C-alpha cells in the first residue's frame, strides 16, 4: 500500500516514461525500439515522449511496422549484452510476432542450457473500453503465463508501473510488461504519487491494496481499481474485502494469496481478459488445490466475456467485468 502521498501525482504514462528515462540514464546498454516511439511524436500514446531527444535516435529506435523484426532484433541484442525494451503498440499485435516471443525470447535460455540469457522487456498496451473493437482491445496475459521462460507483469498504479518496469529492465529474463491504455493519461481515475529516481519494486511481491477480513479479491492491472471501488460498496453492507494486487503473474506471490485466503476463507479472482482459460483459472485452481479444506465457498472467477470484444459501446461495457459483477461474486461467496 503506497502511502508516499508527498510525491507528485502523475498519470501512469509519465511514470512509465520516468522508468525508461531512469534506466537509460543508469545503463548505456538499455535502448528502446518500436513503432513511432521517437520524436517528434514520442509514441502514439506519447509514453516515450522526449526520450529520443535526450538519448538520441540510436537508443530510441523507430522501426518499420515489422513486429517480428522488432522482437527478433531485441532478442539478438539482448543475447549480445544489451537490455532492449521493445514496444509492441497493442497487445493484439503480439499475434503477428508470437514466434519470436514464445519460441525464441522465452526458450533460448533453456535451449542453450543457460548460456544465452535474454534480458529484454516487451512493453505493450492493452485493454478494452475505448471503442477500438475486436482487434485492438484484448488482454492475453494467459497465453504468456502458459509460456515458461517469460515473466509477466501488469501494474495497476503509476508507482507500481515505474518500480516494476525498472525491475523488468534490469531483470535477466524476458519480461512481458502489460500496460493498459485506459490508465495512461487519466490522472483523475488512475493517477498516483510516483517517487523520483531509481525505485524498484521486486517481482513476485503482491501488494495488499486494501486490507479486509471477509473475502479476498485477487486482481491485477486496471481491474484492481474496480475491485477497490467494489470493496467500498461492499463495506457499506459490512463485507470487508481484502484486495490483493498481484502486480506480477510470473513470478506469482502464492504466499500472499494463500495467506490472505487462509484468513478470509473466501476468494474472488478478477481480470479483464476472457474468462475461459484465463489467468483466473490458474489462480482458482491453485487456491483450491492448496486450501481446499479451509475454503468456505468455491473461488469465484470474474473475467471478460467468452467472446471477442464487441464495438458497440453498450456491448463493450458488458464485455468488461463490472463492479456489479465483482460485487455479485463476493456476495456469492459470503452468502
Amino acid at each position, binding site marked *: 500500500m503506497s502511502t508516499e502521498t508527498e510525491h507528485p501525482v502523475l498519470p501512469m504514462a509519465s511514470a512509465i516514461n520516468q522508468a525508461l528515462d531512469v534506466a537509460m540514464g543508469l545503463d548505456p546498454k538499455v535502448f528502446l525500439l518500436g*513503432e*513511432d516511439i521517437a520524436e*517528434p*511524436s514520442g509514441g*502514439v500514446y506519447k509514453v516515450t515522449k522526449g526520450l529520443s531527444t535526450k538519448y538520441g535516435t540510436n537508443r530510441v529506435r*523507430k*522501426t*518499420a*511496422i*515489422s*513486429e*517480428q523484426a522488432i522482437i527478433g532484433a531485441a532478442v539478438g541484442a539482448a543475447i549480445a549484452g544489451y537490455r532492449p525494451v521493445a514496444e509492441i503498440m497493442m497487445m*493484439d*499485435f503480439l*499475434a*503477428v510476432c508470437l514466434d519470436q516471443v514464445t519460441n525464441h525470447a522465452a526458450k533460448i535460455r533453456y535451449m542453450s542450457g543457460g548460456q544465452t540469457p535474454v534480458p529484454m522487456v516487451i512493453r505493450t498496451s492493452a485493454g478494452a473500453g*475505448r*471503442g*477500438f*473493437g*475486436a*482487434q*485492438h482491445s484484448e488482454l492475453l496475459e494467459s497465453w504468456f503465463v502458459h509460456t515458461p521462460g517469460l515473466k509477466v507483469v501488469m501494474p495497476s498504479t503509476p508507482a507500481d508501473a515505474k518500480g516494476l518496469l525498472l525491475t523488468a529492465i534490469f531483470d535477466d529474463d524476458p519480461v512481458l510488461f502489460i500496460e493498459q491504455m485506459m490508465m495512461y493519461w487519466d490522472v483523475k481515475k488512475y493517477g498516483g504519487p510516483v517517487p523520483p529516481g531509481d525505485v524498484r519494486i521486486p517481482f513476485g511481491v503482491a501488494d495488499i491494496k486494501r486490507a479486509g477480513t471477509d473475502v479476498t479479491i485477487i486482481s491485477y492491472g486496471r481491474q484492481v481499481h474496480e475491485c477497490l471501488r467494489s470493496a467500498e460498496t461492499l463495506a457499506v453492507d459490512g463485507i470487508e474485502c481484502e484486495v490483493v494486487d498481484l502486480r506480477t503473474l510470473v513470478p506469482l506471490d502464492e504466499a500472499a494469496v494463500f495467506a490472505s485466503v487462509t484468513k478470509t476463507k473466501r476468494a474472488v479472482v478478477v481480470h479483464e481478459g476472457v474468462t475461459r482459460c484465463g489467468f483466473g483459472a490458474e489462480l482458482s485452481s491453485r487456491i483450491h488445490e492448496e486450501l481446499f479444506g479451509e475454503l468456505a465457498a468455491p473461488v469465484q472467477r470474474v473475467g471478460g*466475456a*467468452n*467472446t*471477442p470484444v*464487441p*464495438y*458497440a*459501446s*453498450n*456491448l463493450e461495457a*458488458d*464485455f468488461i467485468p463490472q463492479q456489479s459483477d465483482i460485487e455479485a461474486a463476493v456476495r456469492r461467496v459470503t452468502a
Partner: protein
Amino acid sequence: MFDGTDFAALWYETSMTQTSIGGDRPDAPDRDVLLAMFEIQSRIKLCDERFRSMLTSGQIQLIYYSPRGQECISAGWGVHLRPDDYVVTIYRGLHDHLAKGVPLRDLWAEFLGRATGTCKGKGGPMHITHPASGLMVTTGIVGAGIPIANGFGLAAQMDGTDQVCVVNFGDGAANIGAFHEGLNMAAVWKLPVIFVCQNNLYGEHTPMAMSTGVEYISERGAAYGMPGVTVDGNDPVATWKAMGDAVARARAGDGPTLVEARTYRFYGHLMGDAMEYMDKEERRLAMEADPVVAYRNWLIGNGHASEAQLAEIEEVVVAAIDDAVEFAMNSPFPDESELYTDVYAQATS
C-alpha cells in the same frame, strides 16, 4: 537503404506541381465512367467531411481514420469492379467501403455502433463487412488482409469464374511479413488479386523513407515475379488506367499485380492526430492540390460535365448522407444479448 532522402518531399517536388489529369492519355475513360468516379469521390469526400464535422462538434465519438486525400484511388478501382468482385481493406477503409458500394445507412449505423449497422454494431468502423456489396473483410491488423485476399482470389480461381479481388493496404504494410507471404503465394498460384498499396507516405507517425528499404513499393513486385507499377494516385485517369490493366490481367487469368498509388493523408493518422511529425508545407501543398477538387475542375474545364451537373451529383450525395446520418442516429444500440451471439454458429460453451 535509408540514406536520409525524404521521399515524401521528393514525391511532392515531382507530382504536386503536375496539374494535368490523365491529359496525355488517349485512352481516357468514357464520360459515364468519369462521372461515376466523380460520384464515388464525392461520396467519400462528403462523407468524410460529415464525420469530421460531427466528431469535432462532439455529436458523435469514435476512433476515426480519415481517408481524405485518397479518394481517387478507390474510385479508380471502384468503377472496374462488379458487385461479385471481392474487396478487402483496412481500418482506414471508408473510401474503399464506399467505392465498393456499401450502403450509406448501414455504414453510418455501424460506425455509430448501432444494431442496424452492417455488422449489427459489433464490428465497428475497423471491421465493416458487407458481402452483398462484395466488401468482404476490413481488418485492423496491418498487412493481414493480404493473405486473406488470396483466399478470395483462390475461390474465384477454383470456381472458374472471372471474379477478382482487390486488397487495399498502406505503404507501412509493405514492410510486414504478411505482405511478403501473400504476394509470393499469389504470384506462384497466379491468383486474380490486385494488391493496391495506397502509399500516403506515412505509416502512423513514421515517414515511409525511415522504414522502407526501397524507394517505390512497386519495385517489390519483381521479388515475386509479379508486375509492379507506381501510379499517381491523385490522378483519377492515370489511376483508372493502371487499375483497369491490373483488373483485366486478373480476370484473364494472368495473375496478380502490385499497384502502388501515391497519395497523401490530409488529416494524419487518426482524428485528433497532432501531426507534429508531418511537414506543414508538404501538407499545405497536398491539400492545395486536393485531387477531388482538381478533378472536378478538370471535368468542367475539359467539357466532360457542367458545374451544374456536378453540383447535382453532390447534392444527391449530401441528401443520401443526411438520410444515413439520421437513420444511424435514430437507430437503437444492439440488444445486450448480442454480446454472446455470432461467436459460433450455435451457442457453444
